[in-house]
């Protein structure tokens, strides 16, 4: 599904990704862990096509299509979805109207039928129930006045509606208490199929108790220093990142 080959990327002329290579197959969930500043979120943003980041080398193929040359909207239409770490507020734009436009634009690009207001609303109600949020949310302006947990759940709702092939979740657990975390994890699990794939970026291990990864990759200083299965996550939980930071040549005594 996704092939990343020796990806280099920088922001403001500072290189953050220093040669990332990764393969994600359909049906898999890959967890990306690492200390702050390791480049995990940068990878998520570069894959989504955030304008401030510049790709300086390597390539990314989504189902054999060159992702880097695509505009952000083209990537979404190709089946990519980013759950933002800090979803922005969009005042005055109603959630359901925005989602309907998004849903139909993606459908249109695939030559599929679009849904009218009533049909879309029916579908939306079903998804709202699955994700476990209140229907009144969809009448509000996007993310306006939402708490951290509500914003995360809103990202998951969008994912449920748009049904992406590849979902990139950028720290979906940050700022959540145990109950909210469990809810978000459950929603993520409900949305997984053997046809889609997930990249889950996280700093802490605890979400991986609920969302079990097929592979775990440790990022340090813009490269993957170790890959393994879910046991790797547990090792980091007990031992931290020190070993890997040393390996990456970082001076941890400073």
């Amino acid at each position, binding site marked *: 599904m996704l092939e990343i080959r020796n990806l280099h990327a920088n922001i403001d002329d500072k290189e953050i990704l220093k040669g990332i290579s990764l393969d994600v197959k359909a049906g898999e969930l890959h967890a990306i862990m690492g200390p702050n500043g390791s480049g995990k979120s940068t990878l998520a943003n570069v894959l989504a096509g955030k304008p401030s980041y510049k790709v300086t080398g390597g390539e990314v193929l989504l189902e054999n299509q060159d992702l880097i040359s695509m505009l952000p909207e083209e990537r979404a239409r190709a089946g990519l979805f980013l759950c933002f770490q800090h979803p922005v507020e969009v005042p005055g*734009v109603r959630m359901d109207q925005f989602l309907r436009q998004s849903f139909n634009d993606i459908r249109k690009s695939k030559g599929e039928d679009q849904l009218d207001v009533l049909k879309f609303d029916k579908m939306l109600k079903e998804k709202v129930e699955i994700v476990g949020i209140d229907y009144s949310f969809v009448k509000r302006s996007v993310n306006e006045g939402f708490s951290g947990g509500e914003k995360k759940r809103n990202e998951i709702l969008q994912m449920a509606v748009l049904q992406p092939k590849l979902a990139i979740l950028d720290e979906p657990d940050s700022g959540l208490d145990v109950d909210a975390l469990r809810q978000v994890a459950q929603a993520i699990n409900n949305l997984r199929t053997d046809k889609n794939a997930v990249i889950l970026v996280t700093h802490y291990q605890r979400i991986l108790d609920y969302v079990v990864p097929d592979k775990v990759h440790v990022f340090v200083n813009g490269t993957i220093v170790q890959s393994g299965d879910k046991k790797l996550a547990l090792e980091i939980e007990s031992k931290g990142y020190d070993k890997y930071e040393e390996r990456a040549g970082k001076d941890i005594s400073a």
Partner: protein
Amino acid sequence: MPKLVTEKDVFSKAFITLEQDIPTGITTWLEKLKRDAADHFKQLGLPIQRRGNEEWKYTDLSPIAKIAFSPIEKFDSKKLKQEVLDYILLGNPSWNRLLFVDGNFEPDLSFVNDTDNIILKNIQDVVADKSYKLEQHLSKYKDYSNNAFVALNTAFIKDGAFIQIADNRLVKEPIHIIYITTASQPETASYPRTLILGGKGSQAEIIESYWGLDNEAYLTNAVTEIFVGQAASIKYYKLELQNENAFHISNTQVVQDSDSYFSSVNIDIGGKLVRNNIDFLTAGENTNSLFNGLYLINATQHVDNQVILDHAKPYTTSRELYKGVLGGKSRSVFHGSIIVRPGAVKVNAMQVDKNLLLSDKAEADTKPAFWIYCDDVKCGHGAACGQIDDQALFYLRSRGIDEETARNFLTRGFVNEIIDGIDNEDIRIEISSIVQAKLENIR
């Protein structure tokens, strides 16, 4: 090519006509009022001098002064196409309305049937009838002695709207006052005059709309006086849809008696040079007032909004939100002044002006001013001027929405704060579609 004339000459041709119209020996109260206003205008002149003229600093009136205004031939109302009329009636032909073309009342295109609750008459119809309280109220709220445009309008009153809502009556449907300029003859002027009296405890919604049919330049110099009676609730909407060559100068004076509610939504879409003065005065305690405005301008349009809120009485609240979307090389000016008089305790006033610039060359000027002569009050202001939020734009695009559609979403989202504040669904839907049409043309 407009004739270049001096400031004094500008209206002298029209003055001669005015004075010729008044028969000697007979002077009604209205004629006396007009003559007095004309005398004041002659003394005041147009505020063309910009240096040292704070009120008009950002708005250059010399284009108006350079055009000599000629009298207009009466329009044959049967020439008005049905689809144009339908559009002007805002899709609601059942609303009570008065319609004027080039300053002349058109009875065939007007409609009044709610005579239990309202008096809705054109001024000429009630001038001579003392049972209508026109003389007691007309020009009693907006003083012309130090305001050239108000003096000019008062001097040239031809016809206008007189609206009186009976005490304690709830008027279910909006009342629509329509001022149309044909704009097919070059360089004409009209002086719309509106007087609205909301009786004690009354509730009504009034829309005033201004339209330009053809493309010639013209001047609309309008004055609206609104008195909101004790415990009344009056919602006022002004839709300025003049053509792109028009000069629109309006003066609106609102006086609120105690325990009343007043809201005003002022929408500017057309016009080449637009200046709106809104003056508000509390004549009693416990008033609540809302002044919202939306200006959507493009190319070389210039819109100048001056709002002066005079909280003369204690326990009065006001909220002001003006929002602008600017494209091309357009220019907006917003001056919001709040006065709190001595002894006016517990006044709560908040004023905000926000501008969204869609082009590099557009410019928005915003200036709040406070004259506060009482300590125990809460007054604040906010102003913002910016472009479309990049983060929000990326968010929408990351969901598959193309850039142009995403920009439209965000621009509409910006104006929605004003649109969503309109309670009446019929009015909101109509204004929303007019606003949407203009937004699609702003670059």
